[in-house]
């Protein structure tokens, strides 16, 4: 197991480096000049100085290596200094946003909680809804519950989140006035009414994303349960006289969870990506909104860092899924 994990970890490093190179080249070789939006009254020599101050004077490979150093060495050292007060970075240059002239990672840290609340909660709720639905659908295959479950999950992943979100706003904010349509991130939870308000403003974005996640995971759960329900060991367990509940929830569920757990792990980064749209619908100023505004403002360091962080998430959760699979299913470790 140890070797398996190490091998996977080592494979992740070149992947990440390569992705960072692709992102860097893509952003750098694209037509368009970051200083093109500046007013025409700025004289060309000043413009040239602005370009130099943005670090654009160096050749491309130097800028790439500099970015690598800033992201992989200076930022972790700075984080260490923040946490433990041991300053090893010596005030080394961090990745600076062109929009705000402040470190990119600091802005990301500010935006993180909103996204984590909305995305995290919706994923947890989605999984909690999906598992029982998948189990019951598989156990009572072709029953009315299964038919409705299939239909709802089909609708769940066919209807895009930007339509369900808008639809919920029309119904619950415009018509009924139950929930606010804009997410207020400055809201602090101090007492019971403010907690209720927080629940209210979380309700719609979380519901939209949870429906979408639950739709996919419940399909996987159902398929995986169906695969296992017809196996010989299930018949053996029943023949031994085990209670149906034990057969289903101990024997079948445990084995069915193996692929589902990896699907759940693999789904986390895509949910972050999908949350970009939901954040836009409900005006949550999280990571997705940060990315969109950075893209529109041509803030290349911010875009580069954010997309790379999304890539890191994907690679990390792929790794987690692989390792989890290895832990849960000993057969695949020695392939």
């Amino acid at each position, binding site marked *: 197991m140890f070797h398996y994990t190490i091998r996977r970890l080592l494979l992740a490093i070149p*992947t990440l480096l*390569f*992705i960072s190179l*692709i*992102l860097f080249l*893509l*952003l750098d070789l*694209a*037509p*368009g000049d970051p200083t093109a939006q500046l007013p025409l009254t700025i004289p060309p020599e000043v413009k040239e100085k602005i370009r130099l101050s943005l670090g654009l004077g160096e050749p491309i490979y130097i800028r790439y290596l500099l970015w690598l150093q800033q992201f992989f060495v200076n930022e972790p050292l700075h984080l260490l200094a923040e946490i433990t007060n041991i300053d090893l970075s010596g005030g080394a240059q961090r990745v600076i946003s062109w929009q705000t002239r402040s470190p990119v990672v600091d802005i990301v840290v500010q935006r993180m909680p909103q996204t984590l609340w909305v995305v995290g909660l919706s994923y947890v709720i989605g999984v909690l809804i999906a598992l029982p639905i998948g189990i019951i659908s598989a156990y009572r295959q072709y029953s009315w519950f299964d038919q409705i479950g299939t239909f709802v999950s*089909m*609708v769940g*992943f*066919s*209807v*895009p989140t*930007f*339509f369900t979100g*808008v*639809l919920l*706003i*029309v119904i619950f904010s*415009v*018509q009924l006035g139950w929930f606010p*349509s804009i997410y207020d991130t400055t809201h602090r939870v101090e007492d019971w009414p403010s907690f209720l308000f927080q629940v209210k403003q979380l309700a719609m974005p979380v519901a939209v994303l949870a429906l979408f996640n639950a739709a996919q995971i419940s399909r996987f759960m159902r398929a995986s349960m169906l695969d296992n329900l017809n196996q010989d060991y299930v018949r053996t367990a029943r023949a031994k006289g085990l209670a149906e509940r034990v057969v289903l929830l101990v024997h079948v569920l445990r084995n069915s969870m193996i692929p589902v757990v990896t699907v759940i792990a693999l789904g986390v*980064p895509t949910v972050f*990506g*999908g949350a*970009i*749209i939901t954040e*836009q*619908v409900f005006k949550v100023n999280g990571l997705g909104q940060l*990315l*969109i505004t950075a*893209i*529109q403002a041509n803030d290349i360091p911010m*875009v580069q860092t*954010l*997309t790379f962080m*999304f*890539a890191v*998430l*994907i*690679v990390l959760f*792929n790794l987690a899924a692989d390792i989890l699979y290895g832990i849960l299913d000993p057969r695949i470790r020695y392939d």
Partner: protein
Amino acid sequence: MTDLAASGAERPPRSQWGDVWDQFKTHRGALAGTIFFAFVLLAVVLGPVIWPIDAQYIDIRARNSGPSLEHPLGTDQLGRDTLARVFAGGRASIAVGMTAMLLSLVLGTLIGVVAGFFRRIDGPLMRLTDLFLALPLLPLLLVIILLFRDALRTAFGPETGIFILVVFVIGITSWMQTARIVRGDVLALREREFVLAAKSVGTPPRRLISRHILPNVLSPIMVSATLGIANAIITESALSFLGLGFPSDFPTWGRLLFDATDYLQQYPERVLWPGLAISLTVLSVNYMGDGLRDALDPRIRGR
């Protein structure tokens, strides 16, 4: 024994596609999906004939009007007819969906077949596929569109430029699943006796692929084609919804939905039509894919 032979002789010979169709028909959702999708296709193609109002025609005096005989779905803030715009938007969305699906299918099949058939480049190609799967797709799509939008606009004109760009980026970011499935099937096929037989009579690899391999991997390709349309339509609408797709005077379903969200308070019904159109089309295509997968799987067929 004789009974079996006799009953076999009475039946007309069945073709493979006949069997597939028979199985497909039993899936009610798939049948309904196919009929609905055909209806949508007809509607967006024949839309301008049935409903001759120009989607771009601005009738400022009739702006923001509700449903009437003249404008069955009402008009928008510039007095443009919503029904005509939904038809025009559908034409753009489905054209993007189909072309992007074709591109990703061609890419995916090519890479899958080449990787499965030629051992030497299997490793590099599959690493490439894994790499693409590890890319953050939606952020990347947004970045690419933003960076190359202006260059392509000046080269091909505002609408064609964006069309090429959107189709291209959706195509090159969605071929990976097809490639993986096709490669797996090709790997299994190339060990089969009929491929060996064809090889031993001296069939060149090119003809081996076109004659023996491709027809046998057709079913997974068809299933990923349907799912690819659904994915491409959703992605295009999402891009338009984020304001990074087509320009606002060129209606697509996502763009119409995006424009309608500005008037959510006053005219909430306006988001309904484009939203419903996207959702129902994608739902019908997904049902079609579901039925096709069942029908093309010989283990399920005949049950």
